């Protein structure tokens, strides 16, 4: 209830180094890690994600590229799951499991890259909209509002149909249409931080805009951005599959979305080849769920008032 009285609890190391701050930060990181680990679903999510990322990285070893070469396929088309092909084969006789592993690469790459684009735009615009006043702020707010309100998928469709299909297109389209939510969160956090008295104190000490942003605002915003990043990767993976499904992806590269697109195009869905419809979809659901769980766990570490959500 009451603040610790200080005197008794202070560390009593006699001659601390100047880098006490760094040591402090390491200690804090350790605390965050321990708190994160106490969240069971978040930890499960993290472990599963680590496995999926590991599989994706090891794709060339686990499923050498030639196994997906249509000309060198031995298995039949649309074979149901068997010992040789645990998840069956696709309409050209390729192993669905191998495609799933390779597809993880593209899906995750798009997810992470699009999120990076989105986070950078969102953080910069959000902090600027919160920090500056007057015209800059008004203009940025309008921009945020526009991207917040405009139907993201429709805008992404427009963008990618103009640039032409491809992986880069999808990354750009998702990145540009998904940053507004982050910008809004970052802006409100920036406003919260800047209303604190320590910002006033810093001004009175003679600080510049750059100092305030670098030393006070950015460190306070980063944890939130981090938690939001993991959540956004999840939405980006879904968005990738959606855009691929609508035919805006690169037809030559395998992603979970393009697998589903092919499943629909080749009639796998109506032909009863359930393994080819189910596997990529479940992979998406699983990965997105894991990102969501990790994101929520991070959030509750950062913001203890959210505990028990």
């Amino acid at each position, binding site marked *: *209830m*009451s*603040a*610790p*009285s*200080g005197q008794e*609890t*202070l*560390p*009593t*190391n*006699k*001659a*601390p180094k*100047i880098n*006490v*701050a760094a*040591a*402090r930060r390491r200690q804090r990181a350790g*605390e965050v890690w*321990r*708190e994160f680990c106490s969240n069971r679903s978040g930890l499960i999510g993290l472990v599963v994600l680590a496995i999926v990322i590991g599989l994706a990285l090891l794709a060339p070893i686990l499923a050498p590229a030639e196994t997906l070469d249509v000309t060198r396929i031995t298995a039949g088309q649309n074979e149901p799951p068997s010992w040789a092909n645990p998840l069956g084969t696709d309409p050209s006789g390729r192993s669905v499991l191998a495609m799933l592993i390779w597809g993880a690469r593209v899906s995750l790459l798009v997810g992470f890259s699009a999120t990076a684009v989105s986070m950078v735009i969102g953080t910069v615009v959000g902090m600027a909209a919160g920090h500056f006043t007057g015209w800059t702020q008004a203009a940025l707010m309008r921009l945020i509002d526009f991207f917040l309100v405009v139907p993201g998928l429709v805008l992404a469709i427009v963008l990618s149909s103009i640039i032409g299909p491809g992986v880069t297109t999808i990354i750009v389209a998702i990145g540009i249409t998904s940053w507004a939510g982050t910008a809004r969160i970052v802006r409100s956090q920036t406003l919260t931080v800047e209303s*604190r*008295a*320590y910002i*006033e*104190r*810093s*001004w*009175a*000490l*003679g*600080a*510049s805009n750059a*100092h305030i942003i670098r*030393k*006070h605002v950015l*460190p*306070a915003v980063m944890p939130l951005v981090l938690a939001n990043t993991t959540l956004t990767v999840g939405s980006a993976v879904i968005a990738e599959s959606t855009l691929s499904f609508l035919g805006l992806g690169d037809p030559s590269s395998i992603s979970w979305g393009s697998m589903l697109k092919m499943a629909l195009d080749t009639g796998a869905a109506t032909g009863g080849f359930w393994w080819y419809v189910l596997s990529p979809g479940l992979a998406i659901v699983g990965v997105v769920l894991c990102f969501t769980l990790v994101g929520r766990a991070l959030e509750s570490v950062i913001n203890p008032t959210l505990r028990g959500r």
Partner: protein
Amino acid sequence: MPRLEFVDLSVIYRTQTTVGPGELTAVDGVNLVVEPGSTLGLAGESGCGKSTLAMSVLRLLPANTRTTGKILLGEENVPDLGWGRLRAVRWTEAAIVFQGAMHSLNPVRKVRDQIGEALLIHASGDRAKYKEEKVRDSRVAELLKLVDLSPAKGNSYPHELSGGQKQRIMIAMALACEPELIIADEPTTALDVVVQAQVLQVLGDLVASRGLSLIMISHDLSVLAATCERIVVMQRGKIVEDGPSAEIMRNPQHPHTQALASAFPLIGDPASRLRLPSYAAPEPSGTTSGGQAQGHANDVVLEARNLTVTFGGRGGATNAVDNVNLSCRRGEITALVGQSGSGKTTLARTMLGLQRPTSGAVYYDGNPLKHRRKDLKSYRKAVQFVLQDPSAALNPKHTVYEAVAEGPRLHKLPGDEREIVSRALRRAELNPPERYLATIPQELSGGQRQRVVIAGALALDPEFLVADEPVASLDASVRADILALLLKLKCESGVGALVITHDLGLAWNIADRVVVMYQGKIVEEGPVEQVLLDPQHEYTKKLLSVVPTAQVAADLDGAK
């Protein structure tokens, strides 16, 4: 009429920390009897368990608490009551006037409905008539009149009412079901002194005229003394002193009571003039006394000339600061006194160059202040800022070292940074400095945090400080120590200060001169003794009428 008795009551909070579950004993074996029709004041600092004790009466504590012992309300033991019976007891036998009426009223419902709701819930037996809306409405109107509000105010939403009005709504609500016992939890804490006196008056009159029992909780002994017959002082969950109000005020026994009492010095009492328990100014010599310094016009270090600050635009403009002339002398403490909303904080921010004046200018050493960052830089080294709430004024992510070094780094001060930081901490009486360098603000007490803020300012070696309510958010016992530090800095290092405060006692404690501000204008100024002992302006008189003064204390003694 029920009698309230706590028998060996303990309340324990289960807490969740990073190292695992812990326990915190908020109330520790309290025995206390409140006789019917009596008024009891419960005093103590934040976290001493006084609010927990009050909440336990209606079993309103959060789920992570455990109580042992008995709470006897009449014949019944509250912890043993069934839910149905407990709900029936709530508000009909005892009602609470909550702290911070701002948050204790539902923001989206009209206050009339919120008062009426209490009547409707308990509309059975004698009160069955309140099931009818008409009867209920007339009762609400009657209750509003009781607390000096017009019944039309019932149609307001909480945000449309002032702090004092909201607190009166809370009182009206508490009286709705005619309980025998009223518990008032810091009912006036967030209010200005004048409003505070009005609310206390309303509450005191109602309690007296109806013969109710009252438990009033406050950290402010003078508030309790004004309304209660008896005062109980709590510290760390235990009762440390218990006695008649006059006795506690005049002759506190326990050291903690003495510390609480020292926070509210009697104005006019020479024992507390420029004197605090831990430090006393040396006998006045030429320059420190306000009266003699008057002649040295060239000693003015910081000055506001015809300063006006206007907020808002297009018709709704208000002058927060209205054509103010103010001068602060080198090596002197000037107290700027006013209520919240009087413009005193805006004036302080403008003096610091954090806010641009609409017209007029601030002068430092006779030169007008320019608002370009480069021009302000040398000014910032000379005039520094001490903020109101030290918990908010320190970045929770920065260590004490970083917080204190922020200023020297920004100004690229020559010399060993570590040496500068240590020296500043030592000047702010954080000894030994090494012990504090690596700590973060959360690990320090409120008083220590304020010392870190002061050290951060001193690191730039300023000659003048502007302090905005430097002790308002601190516990009473720490208040005196921080004021002593400011006084010591003035007397021993010649660091003058402009201290913004609502607290006339503070001015009496440490200031040389006092300036009274009202609605953006300065209405009275002069040496402390002159203004506080012989006020001229109506507003100053009004302020003085609601704080304890030596005059009043003498009257009390005479009456005995």
